[in-house]
């Protein structure tokens, strides 16, 4: 059992607060991704869990053991570094065996585990090479092999794919995911790449300015962002945010975009009532709108400004008063710039957000998230 619990973690660098009272619980054998823009504190948090940078306040527990003040070697963890950090003066074999030798494992165990790890990462025929004679992708494999050879209960990964080129990254992503699924380690994976986070994690913790904004599974993080930042950071293109005016019309709440009325689903009536007469954000993803070529009563007529054919979809740029909207359409949908199309907003796919706080407006059951 290696559940990781971080409680009220604070880490400062001078006056800058890198990690700001973070609570995080990672279940045994779970794969959690820390996602955020650079400088959001995700690596600092990971290093605190690894024991490479001591927290100013708060504590870290690994498998019910308080490790806050233990050196890294006593935490039963292993780690993959962003720049691989494999030892250039040792052959690949000795690099992979390093952790085991430091733990004074018997020779047969070392031999067996090194061979296994090397096989899993397809580097078994490179064991007597020096890292200097290897490519970036191969060094990355050595770094991962070294980390899994010790078979620790916790595996920490700090942007392991960020130094690889795009194609190799795509390939390694799938390979890593299938490899890590077979291991029994609790994994924390740091990245700034939202696609990596969505595709690999059991749960994603989205961080900004030292705080975790949302901690949820990829589908929920994508479909139900807790706030505007999460919606715009995750997804390509980012979630659209339109300004809408909340109005009561015969007891039912309506949200107006210009002259166009949106009818929120029934469960949103209650929370939206508080915003009556105020302006809110209507958040909707590019692929969740329906684009029609001919007018419909529940569709908004808009002028297309730019059409970008992206192969699998056509991305339309649309302006609605002052807001820019990105809409993706099927590549067969024929439209040119400066033509009029009609857009339907399925209410169930809309995320309503407070304009001042940027927080999602949610029915009370869901209030925990907000």
């Amino acid at each position, binding site marked *: 059992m290696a559940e990781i619990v971080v409680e009220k973690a604070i880490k400062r660098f001078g006056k800058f607060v890198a990690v700001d009272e973070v609570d995080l619980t990672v279940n045994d054998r779970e794969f959690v991704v820390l996602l955020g823009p650079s400088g959001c504190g995700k690596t600092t948090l990971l290093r605190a869990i*690894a*024991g*490479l940078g001591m927290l100013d306040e708060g504590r870290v527990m690994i498998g019910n053991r308080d490790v806050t003040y233990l*050196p*890294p*070697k006593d935490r039963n*963890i*292993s*780690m993959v*570094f*962003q*720049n691989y*950090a*494999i*030892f*250039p*003066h040792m052959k690949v074999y000795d690099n992979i065996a*390093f*952790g085991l030798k*430091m*733990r004074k494992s018997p020779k047969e165990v070392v031999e067996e585990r090194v061979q296994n790890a090397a096989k899993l990462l397809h580097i078994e025929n490179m064991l007597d090479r020096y*890292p*200097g*004679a290897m490519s970036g992708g191969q060094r990355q494999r050595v770094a991962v092999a*070294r980390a899994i050879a*010790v078979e620790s209960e916790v595996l920490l990964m700090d942007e392991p794919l960020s130094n690889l080129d795009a194609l190799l990254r795509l390939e390694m992503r799938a390979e890593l995911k299938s490899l890590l699924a077979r291991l029994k380690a609790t994994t924390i994976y740091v990245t700034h790449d939202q696609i990596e986070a969505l595709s690999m994690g059991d749960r994603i913790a989205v961080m900004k300015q030292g705080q975790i904004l949302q901690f949820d599974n990829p589908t929920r993080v994508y479909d139900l962002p807790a706030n505007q930042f999460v919606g715009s950071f995750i997804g390509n293109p980012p979630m659209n945010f339109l300004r809408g005016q909340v109005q009561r019309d015969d007891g039912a709440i309506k949200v107006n975009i210009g002259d166009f009325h949106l009818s929120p689903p029934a469960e949103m009536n209650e929370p939206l009532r508080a915003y009556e007469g105020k302006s809110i954000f209507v958040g909707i993803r590019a692929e969740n709108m329906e684009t029609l070529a001919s007018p419909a009563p529940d569709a908004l007529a808009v*002028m297309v400004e730019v059409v970008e054919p992206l192969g699998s979809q056509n991305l339309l740029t649309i302006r609605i008063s002052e807001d820019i909207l990105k809409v993706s359409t099927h590549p067969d949908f024929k439209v*040119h*710039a*400066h*033509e009029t199309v009609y857009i339907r907003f399925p209410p169930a796919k809309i995320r309503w957000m407070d304009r001042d706080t940027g927080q999602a407006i949610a029915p009370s059951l869901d209030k925990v998230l907000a």
Partner: protein
Amino acid sequence: MTTLETPMNSTTTRPSMEATAADRNRAKRRHSIRRGSIYVLACLIALWILVPIWLIGTMAFSTPEDVRNYPKHFAPIPASTETMDFFLNTDGIQRAARNSIVVAIITLILSTLLAIPAGYAIARYLFPGRDAIRLGILSVRAFPIVVLAVPLAITFIKWDMYDKVYSLALMHTALTLPTTILVVASVFAGVPYELEEAARIFGCTPAKAFWKVVLPLAMPGIAAAAILTFVLSWNEVFAAILLTLTNRTLPAQILYTLDKSGDPFKFAGGFFMLIPSLIFIFFIRRYLFNMYGQLNK
């Protein structure tokens, strides 16, 4: 609003943009002139240093008669070890050479052993007063030792350390330590900190990480620093004259007898003094530029 699309016509020809053969030739010529002048400059600098060394080497292996004659030979033909023999068999030279080696080796060991922890601390840790200490180390280099000559001599006599080989080695350690520390610090700074962290993650204490990972990677650089220390001590003459009388080191001995000896002695002595520096350059050149390929910058 108009629905007309602006015509896209990107294939308009622009004849003025096409490079002519004359343009190309001019660019090529400019390029080769620039390259050529860099080579000429590099050759001049190399000659500036190499010609005296070549002259000293040539003279050291010519016969004493040839050394005294003009014009000088351009190569040691006929070659002879007579001049070197004469120098090495001059009274006091062998003893002085032995002293020099002993002093330089003690200096090398002490200086390197002290510089490793000091250099590591400066390279790795942000401790209070780090910059002040760095500056202090540098200012020792800048300090004119002449000012200390009399007090030093008096102190050494008082402590009964005057005219001893080991006491000169201590003095040399003090003199070389700043340089050695700064060189060793830059060597440590070149070892990525992440490697140390990786070692600690995989079961090392900080001390063991240093021993297993940092030291092996820094070793070539430290070796170069040690040889540099050796050469600094080997060439040092002021403290050697100041602090010894009968136990002179080689440079002190040569300087002392210089005005009483002829050209063959001077050339042979000069060449003998040069050897460690030449060896040092051959060593250091391999290591300072490219340690372990691309991994360490």
